[in-house]
C-alpha cells in the first residue's frame, strides 16, 4: 500500500488500535471511533490521525468521521453485532469500496459472508494458521475475501 488511503476504524481495542497505529505510521489518514475515550490511550506516538468519541452504529458519528470519503472501513469492536451493523452501513449506505468486519462467532461470520461482507473470524483464522503451520493446509479460509 504505497498510495494514500482514508481509513475509518470503529473500535479502538487491541486490534483497532494496532491497526490504527500501523496505518498512521505508513502515512495513511486514519480516524478511529470508540465509545469510551479511555480506550484511545492504546494509540501510540506514531498515531497522527483523529480519534472520535462516539457510537459507530450512529450515522451522525460515522458522517462526522467522513465515512463517505473512506477507502476502507474496519469494524473491530468487541461486539459481533456492532461490527456487522457497522460493516453493513459502510457497505450498503455509504458505498465504501472496502469494508472489513471482525466477527468472533464462526457461524455469524459465515452468515456475514453471505451478506457480501469481507469478514475475519479470529477462530477460523487461528485454525487456518495452525493447519498451515503444521502443513495440513486445505480448509475454509478464516479471512476469505468474497464479495
Amino acid at each position, binding site marked *: 500500500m504505497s498510495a*494514500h488511503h*482514508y481509513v475509518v476504524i470503529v473500535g479502538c481495542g487491541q486490534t483497532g488500535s494496532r491497526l490504527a497505529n500501523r496505518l*498512521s*505510521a505508513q*502515512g*495513511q*489518514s*486514519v*480516524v478511529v471511533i470508540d465509545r469510551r475515550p479511555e480506550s484511545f490511550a492504546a494509540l*501510540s*506516538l*506514531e*498515531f*497522527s*490521525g*483523529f480519534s472520535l468519541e462516539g457510537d459507530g452504529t450512529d450515522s451522525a458519528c460515522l458522517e*462526522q468521521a467522513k465515512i463517505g470519503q473512506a477507502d476502507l472501513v474496519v469494524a473491530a469492536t468487541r461486539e459481533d453485532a456492532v461490527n456487522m451493523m457497522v460493516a453493513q452501513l459502510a457497505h450498503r449506505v455509504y458505498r465504501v469500496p472496502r469494508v472489513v468486519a471482525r466477527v468472533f462467532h464462526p457461524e455469524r461470520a459465515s452468515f456475514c459472508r453471505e451478506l457480501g461482507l469481507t469478514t475475519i473470524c479470529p477462530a477460523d483464522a487461528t485454525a487456518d494458521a495452525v493447519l498451515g503451520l503444521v502443513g495440513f493446509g486445505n480448509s475454509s479460509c478464516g479471512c476469505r475475501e468474497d464479495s
Partner: protein
Amino acid sequence: MNRIEFLASRYRAILAYTGLMFLLVAGLMLTPLLVLVAWPDEAVQAACFIVPAVVMAGAGWILWRMFRPRGAAVLSAAEGGVIVLMSWSGAIFASAMPFIPAASLNLTQAVFEAVSGWTTTGLSVVDVTQVSHMVLLWRSMMQLAGGAGLVVIMLAALAGPIGPGLSIAEGRTDQLVPQVRRSVRLVVLIYGIYMVLGVGGLRLVGLTWFDAVNHAFPAISTGGFSSYPDSVGHWDRPLVEGVLIGLMILGNLNFLTAYLLLRGRLRSVVRNGEIRLMALLIPVSAVVAYLATCRALYPAPWKAVRVAVFETISALTTTGFQTVTYGSWNGPGVWVLIVLMLIGGGVCSTAGGIKQYRVHLLFRVMLGELRRLLLPRSAVVSEPLWQGEYKVFLQDAQIRQVVAFVCLYLSTYAVGSLLLMMTGSALEPALFEFASALGTVGLSVGVTARGAHPVALWTMSTGMFLGRLEFVVILVTLIKLGRDFQQAVRFTSRNRV
C-alpha cells in the same frame, strides 16, 4: 537496554533531526542572494550570508550523517520540544550573523533582530534606509519561514519523524486532516496561496516587486517588518492599506479555519468562536480608537477612520505594521492597542498573543459560571464550542490548561514590563512595548531603538521567543533536558567509581 542506552538512542535521533533543520536554515540563508540578479553591485556583502550558511550546513550535515536513524524515528512531544528548541536557537544565532557586518549591529542587536524576524514580531533595530536589499530581503524571509515554522517546512519538504510529536511541539496543535504529514502539506499549500495573493495584490495596487515581496511576506506571517522607516505610512494610500488588512486577517486565521473556508464550509467558519470574537473585537476597538483618539488627532475624518481601523487590526492580528507613530496618542488609544496585542490572533495561525481561542473559552467559562448561579443547584451546565467542523463540550482539563497558560502569560508580561521600566522606560511605553514583544506583534512606541539598553533588548528577545513557542514547550523542554542531563551525569560518575 538500560535507561542510559535508551536516552542515548533517543538523543541520537533528536540530534539527527536537529541537523536536518540546520540544513534547511542554511538553504534559507542563501535566498537573499537572489537580489544579486537585480542589484549585482551588492555582491560585496554576499559573504555575510554565505559564510554562516556554509557553517550551518556543515554542522547540520555532520549531525545528520552521524546520527541518522535507520528508518523514520517516532518522537514524543517532549522530544519534539528538544528539537524545536535547539533548531530555533541555532536558526536565530545563524540568522543574526549577517546583520553584524552587513547592518553594522552588535551581537545583542543582531540577535534581537533575528529573534524578531523568526518569531514574526517585527520590532527592529536595523536602520532600513542604510542597509542593502539583501538584508531587507533576509528580514522578510525570516518572517516568512518563521510564520510557517521550521518543523512545518521540514515535515512538508523533507523526510521527518513519524507521528505528531514534533509539530505539536512547535505549537501546531490543530490538525487539518487525520494524517500529520498531509496536514502539514496543506498548511504549506494554504500559506503558499497567501504568498501569491499577497505579492500579487500589492503589485496590483502599484508597489514595486521588491516592496511587494517585503510587505507581503511580513503581512501573511503577521510579522510586520517593513523596508521603510515609517512602515506602511510610507505610502499613505488607502488601497495599499486595504490589501494589507486583508493579508493580515488571513495570516491571523487558524489554518484549520482557512482550510474550511477554502473548501466552502462557511457555516463552520461562521460558528467558530475565534471568528465571532474577532468580528466583535475589530469594530468595537476601531470605534473606540476613532472616538477617543484618532478623531481629535487627525483633522481629515477619512484619515482618522483609516488609522483607527488599520492600527487596531495590525495589533489584534499581531502583525505590527504602522501607518502613524503613537507618540501623540492619548491613554484610551494606547490602552486599546495593548489589550488587543495581549489577546492576539487565532490559535494555530502565524499570529501570537494569548490567542483568541483561549480568550473566547475563558469568556464562555465565565458566562457559564454566572448562569450556574441562577440555576438550581443540581442543574447540569455544559458549554458547547465549535472546533473546526465539530461541536465539542468544554472539558475541565481544557479549562485548566487555558487558565495555566493565561496565568503564565500574564506573569511573564508583568515581569518583562517591570524589567523594561528598570532599564529606564516609563510605565506606559514599557507596558506597550512588552505586550508587543510577548505577543510577537511589533508595534512600537520607541522603546526599541538602536541605543536601547542591552538588558531591555535581551528582555524583549526572550519575550518574543517565549511568545512564539508558547511557553509551555520551552519550560517542559528545559526541565526535561535538565533531568536527562542529571541522569547521564549520575550514571557516568557511578561508572567511574
